[in-house]
């Protein structure tokens, strides 16, 4: 594994500032993709910024039939959320059809 530096962001502002200060840095939430690709030397971050302390775990129904999903919501938690089960059952099924229990429960930034 190529060495890199590590920082833990304690606020959204800090996370953005760290990223801007070092353009070749990468955010880590669950790490299941980042570390997989870094081990293969496909991704080569100079610094990894841990965003797991940030307040990004909300799942919120918006007034216009949309859902706002925080970047730190795990795939498993999203799939079992009542709003997703009720209004977006295909999303829940798609999530549960992918990866594995360990990878779904781990924090994954949801795009």
């Amino acid at each position, binding site marked *: 594994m190529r*060495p890199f530096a590590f920082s833990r962001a304690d606020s959204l502002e800090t996370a953005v500032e760290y990223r801007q200060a070092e353009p070749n840095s990468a955010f880590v939430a669950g*790490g299941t993709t980042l*570390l997989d690709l870094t*081990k293969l030397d496909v991704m080569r971050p100079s610094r990894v910024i841990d965003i797991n302390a940030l307040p990004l775990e909300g799942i919120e129904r918006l007034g216009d039939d949309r859902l706002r999903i925080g970047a730190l919501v795990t795939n498993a938690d999203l799939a079992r959320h009542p709003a997703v089960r009720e209004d977006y059952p295909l999303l829940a099924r798609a999530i549960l059809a992918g990866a594995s229990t360990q990878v779904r429960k781990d924090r994954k930034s949801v795009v």
Partner: protein
Amino acid sequence: MQMSLSPPDATLTVRLILNGEPVTLEVPPQAILLDVLRDQLHLGGTKKGCDHGQCGACTVHVDGRAVNACLRLAAMCEGQAITTIEGLAEKGQLHPIQEAFLVHDAYQCGYCSPGQIMSAVALLEDPEAATDDAAVRDAMSGNLCRCGAYRNIQAAIADARRHLESNAQQQGRQP
């Protein structure tokens, strides 16, 4: 605002709870939890199978969730509670799933077994998980067994579930 960004070769101090005990690690930033467990802490129970999150041999619990230790930085575990296979038995008493694995011969070479057991425990402790055979197979699908002990693993899980349910019922009856 001053930012203290550590240079790449610095060592980080990481404090976590490991199998119930506080541990302080000194690790490089890119140290992977699996490697730290095996090479630095000499806990060889957690196995390195594929090293890329596909086989589940490295499954551990982090704050109660079953995750692949091969895809987690040690640095990310600051303040977290990690449970490895070594931490399952309490005071020498095997966990019901460990007993069930023995009774049902749920292993051959044993390499996948710690990961299978850690995933099984997480499944058994999940109040929202479905318990039918198909759901169990799906929940356990992140743990590969190249020796093919799957049927016995599934039987062991069903047995351990009955055991845990009967324990819970007995405790409910006590004053």
